[in-house]
């Protein structure tokens, strides 16, 4: 049996609700995006229902500690197709067992979620570290990213608390949405990039007059802090994998 859901978190939770209504045995959960009809396998399309989803979420909240709710949410944000399957079966496993079942690391779904959460948290942490703001002429601090996982919801608070006295935008180019902080609240935004050139960086003309100075000083600093006698490229690349270099001011030439 295959359940097809819309890819949303409430959709996934509704799928769990429907499973408990019917108890159909093993079910494979697929998101609409990747679903391919198979011959001889029964399919049920899940109709996302906020009420049903809330009931499942409330149940999870009663069964598990906060850290595990976070692991659950992070695993969902990984957007990995197999993660949806593990989340689905993990939830069923939690409801069918006594409190504390989430600490059974011998269980494959517990272990899977623990690993997905670790990867997503690492990506979140990397964004907190590697995002580089550029100050535009109108005083806005802008950064664009394309993280491996959908981590914008996870980094929102960090940036809001830290940069409380400056306006900023962090834009996810891959998922085509961003966060905008206007000195009071953070809101989700979408930007219509009309030209290809705009996608990477807002063009230099729009920059604050001191922007170039500080990015240059930062590049200088990065070079000065290095100890040539200790050169260790392997370790360097391990800590800053090449796919992140495009974010980093200090890794740009010139």
């Amino acid at each position: 049996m295959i359940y097809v859901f819309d890819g949303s978190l409430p959709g996934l939770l509704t799928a769990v609700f429907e499973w408990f209504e019917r108890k159909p045995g093993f079910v494979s959960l697929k998101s609409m995006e990747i679903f391919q009809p198979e011959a001889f396998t029964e399919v049920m399309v899940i109709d996302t229902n906020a009420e049903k989803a809330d009931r499942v979420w409330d149940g999870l909240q009663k069964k598990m500690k906060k850290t595990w709710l976070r692991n659950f949410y992070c695993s969902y944000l990984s957007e990995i197709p197999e993660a949806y399957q593990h989340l689905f079966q993990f939830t069923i496993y939690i409801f069918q067992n006594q409190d504390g079942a989430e600490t059974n690391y011998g269980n494959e779904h517990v272990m899977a979620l623990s690993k997905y959460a670790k990867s997503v948290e690492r990506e979140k942490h990397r964004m907190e570290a590697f995002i580089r703001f550029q100050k535009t002429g109108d005083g806005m601090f802008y950064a664009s990213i394309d993280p491996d996982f959908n981590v914008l919801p996870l980094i929102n608070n960090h940036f809001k608390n830290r940069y409380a006295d400056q306006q900023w935008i962090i834009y996810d180019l891959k998922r085509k949405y961003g966060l905008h902080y206007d000195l009071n609240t953070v809101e989700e935004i979408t930007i219509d990039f009309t030209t290809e050139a705009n996608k990477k960086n807002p063009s230099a003309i729009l920059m604050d007059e001191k922007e170039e100075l500080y990015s240059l000083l930062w590049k200088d600093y990065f070079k000065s802090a290095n100890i040539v006698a200790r050169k260790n490229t392997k370790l360097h690349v391990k800590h800053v994998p090449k796919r992140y270099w495009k974010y980093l001011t200090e890794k740009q030439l010139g």
Partner: protein
Amino acid sequence: MSFDRIREKLNILADAAKYDVSCSSSGGTRKNNNKGLGDSHSSGICHTYTEDGRCVSLLKILLTNHCIYDCLFCVSRKSNDVKRAAFTVDEVVELTMNFYRRNYIEGLFLSSGIFKNADFTMERLLLVCKKLRLEQKYNGYIHLKTIPGASDELIKEAGLYADRMSINLEMPTEAGLKLLAPEKSHADVIKPLDFVQKNIAQFSADKKLIKHVPKFVPAGQSTQMVIGATPESDKDIMYTANTFYKNFSLKRVYYSGYVPISDDTRMPVLGTQPPLLRENRLYQTDWLMRFYGFKVQEILNDANPNLDIDIDPKLSWAIRNMQHFPVDINKADYKMILRIPGIGVMSAQKIVQARKFGKLRIDQLKKMGVAYNRAKHFITCVDTPYQIKDYQGTQIKAFILAESQSKYLKTDSNQLILF
């Protein structure tokens, strides 16, 4: 301020500061509740890594590299022929604010050469901190060097604005220090470390009684020792570290492999490779002491005054103490599981939680992140294959070395094996 002059100053004063290896930005508790700039991250953030693989978390600079001292191990020593520069207080404040706003850094690490005298230097450092905190509403991290010999009042006031303070021991023993810096002594370091520690204790005691007590060095103190410039053994180094952890509740001791910067005959010659592997082994020992429940005497003692180069200290301890192994994963207590080579803190915690639900198997251990090829010589679990022969520690070491590739011993890998 002219563009080129500020660039030159930054180059000189960042270059002079880079031999201080402390990079941590953790332990800060400052919250952005004045709608200012900056909010600390309890575990710290490494914003980038230099090409030598070291983390860059803070803007690490000297206020000036003018210095009245002539310590042989230091690039800024009086007799060294290097370019000198000095930042103004406002220049440091602006750099910090602008780097922080762009998410380049977690904060400022401010140190200085000693110009005129200790108090004069400490006053300038304090002024930077006060401007940042009071005028700029800056809540980011500040790591401040305590200047030995500065007055108690200045040090105490600085502690109200800094998150971490540190003073470097420089050499692991008094004899080593006297050899390279006759004007200095460990006592000069101990006095202010002790003074700050007593104040930290006092403030936290007050906090239990009074509601609003200001923060005082919330991220604690640290120190640094230079390794390989003088002939101390690993035992000397780690026993000193242990004493300082105990007596001054230090958050960290850093070990900095000496990078030759002087042609004086008392020091390793220029061009000598810094002792990176030794440095790594010392950090591993430090971790075993702080997070794995090892006593320093178990790892280093008169019979074993230096750490093994070819294997890590945890494995080294295990093969010297085979009477404790094999350990039954399904029964042993957490402390013993932590001592098994190939099992770290995270997997040890998972093991003790998971075994409540049933006896653990090899495949489950592997999934939990245990380095099984290493751990298998020291453990039993439900499906451990029956083994007739008891191997000696030395044989196990040979097995492990045969299947592991050290990232350091590159030159040995192509050696011909004749037998």
